[in-house]
Structure formats: structure tokens, C-alpha cells
């Protein structure tokens, strides 16, 4: 089991603050994402928080948009928008809603319906190549999202165009809304599937910050292929009673006492 360092605990604390402030939110799927998004924004993505539409930036698309709290805390931490916005998420008139939208500085695509982000990312990766820009495109999918046929349409297309500037990541927490992926819609051997669809495949512990850095340092994994990184994660990671529990997928009514329990659990790891 990967031990979370101080920064990972801090970011999770911000997620708890946002859940408490907004009174609702997707929990487990945000917590499984934290290290993936953290390493991307801390060490990998070429972006400018003070110039979110800088042409040569790398693009990041959270295709599993319901994990948005995991993205929002990084965007706030990097200064794309004030941290106070986290506390109002989902409220009337707030900047931040329950799924990412492009009016939020740093958000490249509005997502929430699953199976859209990869296809949009393919267009962006093609555009970067056609315009001879160095931009890379990173797309994070959920493993439940892999049920959508459009993902596999997109992978065929990405491989056909040899989009080596495209990185497809799966936040593979092995859970989806109803329960275990294996039981709802078994995805089978994911590395084999992604390889068969033309990707250069890497697997990594999605909570191991150093391991993630090393995988990203090796991009592109193959100069003629899109890279698929299967990030093995734990839904609800870091809060013991949330981990691998489908009832923590989403809380429509998030009471303050839950925040207290989550903070206490976070301190014990």
C-alpha cells in the first residue's frame, strides 16, 4: 500500500474542505485521482496559470469529469483561481460545478457525460501536430468510463494517426458507481486491450508519486503511438472508510460531521 506524503494529504484536505463547503460531491473518484493530477501539474504539464489560453500549453482533459474535485484542488493550488472558490462548489452562482466546464480557468473541455474527453483530445492532438506546436494532450479516463464505445472508437483513431503527443491515462480504481468493475462490466486485461488498440502501454501505481514521475519522464513511450498509462489506484484513497466502498462514490448531502470524520481518518495515515 502506497503511503501518502504531506502534499498528498494536504490536497485531500482541500477536497474535504470543498465537500464540506459545497455540501455535496463525488468523493471516491476524486480521491483516487489526486496523485495523477498532482504529478501532472507539479512536474509534467507545461501550463501558465496566469495565461490559461497560452497557445503552446499542454492540454489536460479530465474525461471522468465527476472526479472534478481532484482537479479543482490542483488548479486552485496552482493559482488558476482563488482557493476560496473551492468552498462554494456546486452553490448557486459559483465558479465551480459538479463537473468541469470551460469557463473555469485551466479547464480545457467541459466533461461529465462519459466517453467524450478522449475524442476531443484526439482533435487537440491533431491540431497541435498540424500547427507544429509542442503541445501534448493528457486525458484521464475512469475505468467505468471504458464501458463507453466512443473510447474504443477514439483509440482506433489515435493509433491510426500515430498520435504520440497524446497520453491516455486510466484512473483504474476498479470501482464504478454500482460496484466493482469486474462485476458490473468486466474490462478484462486492460494492458492487452490498449496494446491491441495500438497504444504503447505503461502501468503504474497511481498513488506512487515517484513512479508516476518516472513514467511521465519516459514520454512518449513510442514515437509512433499514443501512450496509454494504466494507473492502478484505490477509490477513496487515503480515507480508510471510503476506500473501495461504492457508497462513497457520490454524496448528495455531505454533512459537516462527515468532514470531521474524513479529516480524522486522513491524519491517521
Amino acid at each position, binding site marked *: 500500500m502506497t503511503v501518502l506524503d504531506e502534499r498528498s494529504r494536504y490536497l485531500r484536505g482541500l477536497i474535504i474542505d470543498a465537500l464540506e463547503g459545497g455540501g455535496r460531491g463525488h468523493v471516491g473518484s476524486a480521491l483516487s485521482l489526486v496523485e495523477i493530477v498532482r504529478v501532472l501539474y507539479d512536474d509534467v504539464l507545461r501550463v501558465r496559470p496566469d495565461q490559461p489560453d497560452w497557445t503552446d500549453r499542454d492540454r489536460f482533459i479530465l474525461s471522468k469529469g465527476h472526479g472534478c474535485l481532484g482537479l479543482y484542488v490542483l488548479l486552485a493550488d496552482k493559482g488558476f483561481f482563488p482557493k476560496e472558490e473551492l468552498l462554494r462548489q456546486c452553490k448557486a452562482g459559483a465558479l465551480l460545478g459538479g463537473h468541469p466546464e470551460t469557463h473555469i480557468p485551466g479547464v480545457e473541455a467541459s466533461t461529465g457525460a462519459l466517453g467524450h474527453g478522449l*475524442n*476531443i483530445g484526439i*482533435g487537440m492532438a491533431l491540431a497541435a501536430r498540424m500547427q507544429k506546436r509542442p503541445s501534448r494532450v493528457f486525458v484521464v479516463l475512469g475505468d467505468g468510463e471504458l464501458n463507453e464505445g466512443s473510447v474504443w472508437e477514439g483509440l482506433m483513431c489515435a493509433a491510426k494517426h500515430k498520435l504520440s503527443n497524446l497520453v491516455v491515462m486510466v484512473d483504474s480504481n476498479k470501482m464504478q458507481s454500482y460496484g466493482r468493475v469486474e462485476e458490473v462490466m468486466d474490462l478484462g486485461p486492460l494492458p492487452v486491450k490498449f496494446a491491441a488498440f495500438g497504444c504503447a502501454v505503461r502501468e503504474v501505481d497511481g498513488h506512487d508519486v515517484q513512479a508516476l514521475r518516472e513514467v511521465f519522464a519516459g514520454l512518449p513511450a513510442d514515437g509512433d503511438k499514443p501512450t496509454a498509462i494504466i494507473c492502478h489506484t484505490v477509490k477513496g484513497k487515503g480515507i480508510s472508510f471510503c476506500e473501495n466502498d461504492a457508497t462513497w462514490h457520490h454524496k448528495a448531502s455531505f454533512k459537516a460531521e462527515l468532514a470531521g470524520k474524513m479529516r480524522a481518518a486522513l491524519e491517521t495515515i
Partner: protein
Amino acid sequence: MRQQALDMVHELARRDSRVVFIGSDLGPGVLDGMRREFPDRFFMEGVSEANIIGMAAGLAMDGYIPYVNTIATFLTRRCYEQLAIDLCLHNLPVRLISNGGGMVYAPLGPTHLATEDLAIVRALPNMSVVAPADETEMIRMMGVSLDLRGPLYIRVGKGNEPVVTGHVPDFAFGKAVPLRSGRDVVLISTGAQTGQTLKAADLLAEAGLSAGLLHLPTVKPLDRDAILAAAVATPLLVSVEEHTLIGGLGSAVADVLADAGVLKPLLRLGLPDAYPTGYGSQEYLLGQAGLLPGQIAARVQERLATLS
């Protein structure tokens, strides 16, 4: 009409380096000239409409103007959520060239009949909807399409429709085209059906009736002023469309009248709430639905008789 639309994509690609073409799995040789001249801006992406719309969105987000072409049913029903979210929510300049609007593919059966396309695309915020009447209007509309804001749905007829807009100087987006004025009735139509409706107006004239014809090449946004002016000038409005009566042109006209508080008899001619059966030809199915010129004229006369 489709050929002219595609030829114009090639022409627009010459004029503007932002123009790209994306097809699904079209017939061999489609836009070969463009493929040879601009290989980097020509895409044929297989039977994957959801992917194609998302990909077009991504290209448009980074400055391109994608023209996407496939059969109307697949470009609407198959990827409706992609139209809604990838294109309309992001309000991106992607142009959908939609082959076979209405019952063009009659012999191929109901899987290929786009009889609710106008209803479903016009329900999407930010989506504009056009249906040129003939090849001349298609060429003019395509020229204008380059600079329109947001996504655009282009309903394409079978081709070789009679040219009824030859005298029209240019394509004015959002504006009705009065093809004929009339005192007794004004017919309102869009797309390829305008040619049929003009013949119906001729038949009504032969019967001694003064029938006007208002062609609405832009279905969304609709030219409200032109519709309301027609309502003032005549005792009866008649909408004619190769489309289900639910949510199409007639519904849109009724919305305009209702919103303006104008009580005016409106005869809506279109397709019933049923899947067409019987194959044959487009003309055969139009006849089954009572949408051939003689049938339109007869139904108008019947309705006028009830008003007098």
C-alpha cells in the same frame, strides 16, 4: 446538392487554412481533389460518428473549422450527445453536412430516413440549422458558412432539385426568401421541399388562387418577422416539410405565431408520427404522406374551403 456542398468544402479549404474535412466511411473518391491538395486537412475516420464529432470539437477548440459529412441519421441520432456536449455546449464552429435529409434514402428503409433531424438538432442551444432548396442556394450558403458563429447543421437533399433560388442575390443567414407573393394563402417551406411547394403554388394559381411561397432556408434562427408579416397578409398559412410534424418547421412557425399572440389558421403538412413504410422512391413516400405538389394543392384548397 451534396456534391456542390463538398465541392465548396474544397473551395473553402483553398480560401482558408482553418478549413478541414472529416468524413466517416464515405463512398470511394469523395473529395479526392481536396485529399490530394490538402492531405493534412482531409480525414476519413471510419464508422465512428461519436469519435468524429469529438475530434471535430477538439480541432475547432484549437482554431480549425471542421466540415463533417455523413448520412443524416448517423450524424444526428447516432451521436446526439456529442452534438449537444462537444459542439453545442462548447459553441464550436463545426459544420455538419447531413446527407439525405428527409426520405432521400427511401429504398433503404427507415434506418436511413432522417425524418426528425430538424426537430432534434434545433432543440440544441447554439446550433444553427439550414436547409437549402437547391444547388445554387447550397453553394451560396456554403460560402457564408465559413464565418458563422457556433455549430451549424446543413440538411442536404437528394440532388438535382429544380433551381428555385436562381434569382436570389445572396444567402442571408436567418432570413426568409419570399419566392412568390400571394393574397389567398402563403405556403412556407424549407429545403428540397421548397421545389415541390413551388409546383403546388403553380397548381393553386391555375385554380385561380393567389398562393404565396415563403422559403425558409434557415430553420434556426427562424425569420420571425417574415412569418408574422405573412400571417398579417393572408387568411391561411401552410407549412410544408419533409419531416415529422413533431418539432419541425411547422412547429417552429406555430411557436412564432403563438409567442406573438397571432391567431391565424395554420395548416401543417408533413409526416405523421410513424416510421415510413414501403420503400420505393422518395417521391413514392412523399406521395404516401400527401406531400406531392398536387396533393399539397388539394389539401390547401380543402382547408381554404373551410375558412370561407
